């Protein structure tokens, strides 16, 4: 039986291009799925993927960075830290990675929610080329990713600007070891008394994380007073637009939590 345990990204990409392999990052989702007859490409020794760095515009988190590693890093924004600190429990956070969270394709992925709300980009690499894609474009549908069979997610690029003004809430079934039933993240930046940027993302409610940039525009450029007046219409717009998937916990419940949290976000941040 073959075994792929590359130590460089170049080697990993070469194997990825030449073989039919499933990228294995932390294993916490793959081992539960327990797919038969697949060959894993083990990425846990590729140190290039395990770096956290920053440039003028972005915090750059390697796809192989674990949640535990991120929690210790001074570079990772608080909003992201808060979200990953609520993931499962220490052993899972020690294994689970940012790349794996993305690659699993679940709308319940707690780090992916933050990537949506911060307009993060993903650097995707293959042996032949490299490209950058917006996180919301990366998710094409339920478990459908914009990732070719020769590509790997290399890095997550989180824009640094304005991340301090955030709101985050995860609703799990209990206080630890809980998969999100609803998660919500919001960012609201103001400049000269007007809303400069607003972002609201909802996790675990549909096939992908939901974010509606068109609706967000309703409040951009508005003063607090104006936004306050538009608030109920704004929330209603979300209520009318969001289509939730069915689950163990009812769609009605999850939708009302979404609206409640959205309202609370606006009340606190406007």
């Amino acid at each position: 039986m073959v075994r792929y345990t590359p130590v460089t990204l170049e080697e990993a990409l070469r194997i990825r291009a030449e073989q039919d392999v499933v990228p294995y990052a932390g294993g916490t989702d793959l081992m539960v799925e327990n797919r038969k007859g697949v060959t894993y490409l083990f990425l846990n020794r590729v140190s290039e993927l395990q770096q956290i760095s920053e440039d003028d515009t972005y915090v750059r988190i390697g796809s192989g960075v674990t949640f535990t590693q991120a929690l210790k890093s001074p570079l990772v924004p608080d909003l992201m830290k808060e979200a990953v600190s609520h993931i499962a429990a220490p052993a899972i956070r020690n294994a689970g990675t940012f790349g794996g969270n993305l690659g699993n394709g679940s709308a319940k992925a707690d780090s992916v929610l933050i990537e949506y709300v911060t307009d993060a980009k993903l650097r995707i690499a293959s042996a032949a080329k490299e490209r950058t894609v917006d996180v919301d474009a990366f998710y094409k549908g339920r478990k459908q990713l914009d990732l070719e069979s020769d590509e790997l997610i290399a890095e997550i690029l989180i824009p640094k600007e304005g991340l301090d003004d955030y709101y985050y809430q995860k609703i799990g079934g209990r206080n630890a070891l809980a998969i999100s039933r609803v998660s919500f993240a919001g960012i609201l930046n103001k400049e000269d008394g007007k809303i400069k940027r607003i972002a609201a993302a909802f996790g675990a409610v549909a096939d992908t994380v939901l974010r509606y940039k068109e609706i967000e525009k309703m409040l951009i450029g508005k003063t607090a007073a104006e936004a306050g007046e538009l608030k109920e219409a704004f929330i209603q717009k979300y209520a009318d637009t969001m289509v939730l998937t069915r689950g163990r916990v009812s769609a009605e419940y999850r939708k009302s939590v979404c609206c409640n949290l959205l309202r609370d976000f606006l009340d606190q941040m406007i």
Partner: protein
Amino acid sequence: MDALNFVLNGQKVSYEGSANDRLLDVLRDEYDCKSVKCGCKEGECGACSVLIDGVLYNSCCVAMGAIADRSVVTMEGFRETERFAVLDKAFAEMSAVQCGFCIPGMVLAAEALLSANPHPDEEQIREGLSGNLCRCTGYNAIVKAVGNAAKEGNGLW
């Protein structure tokens, strides 16, 4: 393909099987590490917790390919240490062991916690053990035992 080498409880070993095999199964079936318990095979209970390079993992969620050249410690190895002796005494004094099934994993979680944070407060202990389900104790005795071990074992961690 070469055999997969790793260190198990301080001994170098070579695994000849598939890289896809589950560490939990391999530890139990090939290396007779029966302290590693299977509670769910989904990373949801912590009964199969082991230390890999000193870090806590659920061995049910680790494929063998991921541990090449790394060091795995199970209770079979940890029980020979001085740190274990301190935890052992603390758990005994609190009668924190009931059915025992969660205990090897729980104790390794305590070891991982204390290694990272030798003087945890109660909240930190509860966080450190939060991936290890116990249905018998209600956790109070275990949490107290870990706190007592941290005090008793001052300097060991």
